[in-house]
């Protein structure tokens, strides 16, 4: 059962008003069980992993590896296929710098979509600058969905080598037809990477069913701590990859002249890892398992439907990405008002929102708006919170509405 009381922060106030946390696509609030796992780790078990013969080291290594098993089971992977990283960004960079540097040649094509987060664009632009690959972007329809006909054409190119796309955009919230696209890519022999940074919080993910080569996400978006994330890599593909960072933990043997490396996943985890983070992420997965994804999805569908119904009563709001089948992530463009003003002023009322381009500038360019106001909900949000948000937004609009900004109107499509 969904209980708001599981999340201690939801009790707090901002300027004397109840916290309405609508920034879950940025980071999700932490259940007490996760917070407790961190305190418990530092109070009772703190030691380094995989090192030394002491009972504490053994205990903490067991906890760390149990977390790897929990995380693996959470996405249907084997523990050896789970590499702990700092988050989605580091995971994608790891793939670009190991697999990309080794497997790609000048002129090879990496296919992204226009809706990608900068974390799934920049590492590939950097790779382009290093070795001269080409980037192609799957174009979007006006409703924010992938143009599948154009995607097929890109996949058909004989130099196409990698498909790297997000399952759910952090701006649009649209659930993309990922399985279909992955199948097309696989048939053509492309390697595939799924950015699950947003989808992991909403959808049941199984890497066996998706049959992707890589899948990446951040722990903090599912209630885990910040600074811990995951790179799933299919066993066969990880076995062939060179190490990423060099240092302790990842080596078998070192001499003054050479070194040999451990197998995956340890080969990719140089230095003392984020032990507390991994343990906290394990606790977050266990919390979500107990809640059951079907219950989370059902609740989020209700919230999505209610939000859309209410927001559509506001004629001065335009939603980016009008396609059906969304998780509760909504990016709004407000007539005559900049998103920063709305986020700032609604923030004073205790409503926590994100304004800007949400690290997806090419996508905002596509919609021809410089910025949007994003409300992203989680299963612990309520109808009352949506009502409060909509009422305050209406009030704010009335205070701002006089000045017609022609250029803005035209670009935003009002």
């Amino acid at each position: 059962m969904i209980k708001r009381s599981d999340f201690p922060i939801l009790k707090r106030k901002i300027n004397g008003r109840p916290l309405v946390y609508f920034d879950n696509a940025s980071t999700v609030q932490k259940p007490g069980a996760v917070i407790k796992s961190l305190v418990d780790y530092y109070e009772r078990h703190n030691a380094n992993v995989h090192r030394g013969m002491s009972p504490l080291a053994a205990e903490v290594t067991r906890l760390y590896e149990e977390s790897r098993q929990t995380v693996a089971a959470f996405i249907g992977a084997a523990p050896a296929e789970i590499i702990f990283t700092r988050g989605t960004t580091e995971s994608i960079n790891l793939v670009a710098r190991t697999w990309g540097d080794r497997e790609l040649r000048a002129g090879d094509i990496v296919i992204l979509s226009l809706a990608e987060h900068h974390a799934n664009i920049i590492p590939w632009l950097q790779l382009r600058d290093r070795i001269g690959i080409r980037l192609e972007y799957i174009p979007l329809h006006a409703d924010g969905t992938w143009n599948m006909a154009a995607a097929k054409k890109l996949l058909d190119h004989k130099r196409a080598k990698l498909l790297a796309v997000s399952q759910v955009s952090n701006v649009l919230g649209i659930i993309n037809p990922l399985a279909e696209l992955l199948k097309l890519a696989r048939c053509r022999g492309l390697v595939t990477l799924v950015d699950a940074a947003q989808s992991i919080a909403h959808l049941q993910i199984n890497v066996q069913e998706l049959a992707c080569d890589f899948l990446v996400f951040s722990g903090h978006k599912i209630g885990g701590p910040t600074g811990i994330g995951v790179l799933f890599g299919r066993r066969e593909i990880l076995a062939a990859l060179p190490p990423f960072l060099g240092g302790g933990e990842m080596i078998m043997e070192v001499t003054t002249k050479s070194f040999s490396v451990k197998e995956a996943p340890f080969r990719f985890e140089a230095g003392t890892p984020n032990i507390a983070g991994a343990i906290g992420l394990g606790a977050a997965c266990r919390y979500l398992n107990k809640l059951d994804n079907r219950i989370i999805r059902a609740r989020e569908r209700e919230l999505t439907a209610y939000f859309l119904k209410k927001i559509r009563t506001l004629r001065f709001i335009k939603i980016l990405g009008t396609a059906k089948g969304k998780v509760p992530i909504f990016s709004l463009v407000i007539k005559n008002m900049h998103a920063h003003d709305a986020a700032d002023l609604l923030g004073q009322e205790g409503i926590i929102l994100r304004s800007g381009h949400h690290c997806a500038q090419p996508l905002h360019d596509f919609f021809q708006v410089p910025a949007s106001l994003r409300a992203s909900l989680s299963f612990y949000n309520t109808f009352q919170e949506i009502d409060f948000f909509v009422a305050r937004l209406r009030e704010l609009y009335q205070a701002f509405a006089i000045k017609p900004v022609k250029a803005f109107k035209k670009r935003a499509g009002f």
Partner: protein
Amino acid sequence: MDIYAQNIMDHYKHPRHNGPLAKADAKHRALNQSCGDDITVFLKFSGDKIKQIKFIGQGCAISQAGISILSEELPGKTKKEVLAYGFDEIKKIFGIAISERRYNCAMLGLQAIQRAIIDKG
């Protein structure tokens, strides 16, 4: 609910000195890439003093009201005085509390003016 101070909303809705200046002595366009705030200023000088400021732009209320206020307040000041202005002076001129997170919005107009002065030598 608390909206911005009256003068900010007034300048935002009714910007002063809005529009280009054909025979400007200096001009500069300043952008906040991350949010799309966009201000182009046109300056006329009289000796070492600023004689006239006009601007075009779009963006949030703080940035747009801000440049409108500056277009009223800065003419008559010397270039040297204006170049020495910082966040403290802006807060004083705007007459409102500006949080750190709106620093870039608040400073954009001043930065455009200062850059125009510097580029002109």
